[in-house]
């Protein structure tokens, strides 16, 4: 059973009853629960569908941050074979908030990286909840340099609340590191495909998402600042995050309309965490299609497409 979000009470109730019934039946073999379970399952599915076809922006933010949602390392494990994790920025340290390395995607050699949030307390601490320090972005630059040198396409998975706001990060030039990473994305002579799989948080996200194609999962969010951050600045009250989420237009559907992203990847009913493998496969297929569009394109054209795509954003609203 997944952990439920606060707005999923109705689903939780039905699924709770189903689990109870099944537990009882397991103890008492003579109990016939088939019809009852079927009935409840139907109700649960309907309740889930009712919720998920009409998620509010704030509810989407919660789904995007769901603890069981697949993260970058899950995608790498599901979609990349022959994976070799690479570490370090060659300047100061290894930052686990951005993970990456070499591998094969559908058989073809690639460089892959992403923000990793972690899945339990220990791994969350290790990966700093997906909030990178300058070393993370400098490692990203290094990996993109590798991609250029060996002519490998780059795939990035975007999932961060934002770059880490700490003394050490500032001391070592967080702003410069982000700027250089965005810069590197935009000068890459190989295809760069980004998938926003959870949270696309501000500069910390764009640093590895200035891509030829930006894909986004159906319930992912992508914004200039977190809803909580915007609420505390604009309303001076972080409790107004719900309003900020709505006002800022952070959903995949809004961003597609604004031509900021290229494609929405549909999620299974109830969100990516309910059918992780299916969700990651759909993402892989979308990445594969996107990469296919750049097959055989020369370096100049790839770079030009990326730059013109970003310059065009906002001019066509």
């Amino acid at each position, binding site marked *: 059973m997944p952990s439920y979000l606060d707005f999923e009470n109705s689903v939780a109730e039905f699924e709770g009853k189903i689990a109870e019934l099944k537990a009882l039946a397991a103890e008492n073999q003579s109990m016939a629960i088939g019809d009852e379970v079927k009935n409840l399952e139907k109700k649960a599915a309907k309740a889930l569908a009712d919720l998920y076809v009409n998620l509010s922006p704030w509810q989407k933010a919660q789904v995007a941050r769901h603890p069981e949602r697949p993260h970058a390392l899950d995608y790498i494990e599901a979609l990349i074979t022959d994976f070799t994790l690479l570490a370090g920025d060659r300047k100061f340290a290894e930052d686990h908030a951005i993970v990456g390395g070499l591998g094969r995607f559908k058989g073809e050699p690639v460089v892959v990286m992403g923000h990793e949030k972690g899945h339990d307390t220990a791994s969350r601490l290790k990966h700093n909840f997906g909030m990178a320090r300058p070393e993370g972005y400098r490692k990203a630059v290094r990996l993109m340099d590798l991609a250029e040198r060996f002519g490998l396409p780059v795939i990035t998975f975007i999932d961060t609340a934002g*770059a880490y*706001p*700490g*003394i050490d*990060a*500032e*001391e*070592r*030039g*967080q*702003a*410069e590191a*982000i*700027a*250089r990473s*965005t*810069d590197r*994305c*935009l*000068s890459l002579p190989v295809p760069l495909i980004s998938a926003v799989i959870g949270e696309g948080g*501000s*500069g910390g996200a*764009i*640093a590895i998402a*200035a891509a030829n194609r930006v894909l986004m999962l159906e319930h992912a969010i*992508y*914004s*200039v*600042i977190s809803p909580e*951050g*915007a609420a505390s*600045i*604009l*309303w001076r009250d972080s409790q107004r995050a719900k*309003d*900020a989420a709505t*006002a*800022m*237009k*952070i959903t995949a559907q809004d*961003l597609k309309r*604004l031509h*900021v992203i290229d494609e929405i990847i549909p999620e299974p009913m109830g969100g990516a965490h309910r059918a992780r493998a299916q969700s990651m496969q759909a993402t892989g297929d979308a990445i594969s299609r996107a990469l296919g569009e750049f097959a055989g394109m020369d370096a100049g054209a790839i770079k030009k497409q990326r*730059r013109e795509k*970003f*310059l065009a*954003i*906002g001019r066509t*609203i």
Partner: protein
Amino acid sequence: MNWIKNFIRPRIQTLLGGKREVAENMWVKCPETGEMVFYRDLEANLFVIPASGYHMRMPPDARLKHFFDGGEYEPVAMPQVPVDPLTFRDERRYTDRLKEARQKNGVEDAVQAGIGTIDGAPVVAAVQDFAFMGGSLGMAAGEAIVASMRAALAHQSAFVLFVSSGGARMQEGILSLMQMPRTTVAVQELREAGLPYIVVLVHPVTGGVTASYAMLGDIHLSEPGALIGFAGPRVIEQTIREKLPDGFQRAEYLRDHGMVDRVVPRGELRGELSRIIRVLTKRPQLPEVKDGTLAIAAS
């Protein structure tokens, strides 16, 4: 009642004369020492308090006039952009905030730029002004930065950016964030054309502006004491729950940590910029006059 407040407010501001026109005999207080200075004297000293050396905010037109030879420049035409693309409102409508900022500042948005010369060398200079909605980077400012950099490209000249900004304009949401890669494309165009791009960091510079074009210059100069960072001090304090060290994120700190080349008092900026541009564009050295400042060449 709210709609009345929102509707009436901008009009009252016009009646009261919201424009920045300060009487010549007005006194200005130094935020550091409390010393009182005549506005006229402050203006004559490039808005630096004479005794304390505190750098007050310098209006963009004064900045550009001081920078270009003879105070003359041709303004860069700023592209029109869609207004309020998200129809955003928080406690007030974004369009009302924008209207008010335009009335108060007498300009369309946060970035102004000019084409001219410095000691005879062709140059395009832009000013991103904190006085206009915190110098925030929205579509207008982003497009203005791109247009200014492209003006330098068209004139095959150096580009100087005086930048002061709190970061993204939140009322434009993701379209504000997209100005980071957009302006970076323009920086790359300058770089590929072999044209110098010099950033002058003016108090304060934070957020998405620091994390894009403000940290991508060939040379980074800063005015003394300017706050420069990615996250603002308040955000960091809330994250780590401790007081920040003295001088943290100040210009001198960034210089000591390798992010800024030089901290230059405003009075010496013009000379420094001229000297750097002449070396980078392989122009002959200007004759040095006795007091250490440079003579202005006729051509």
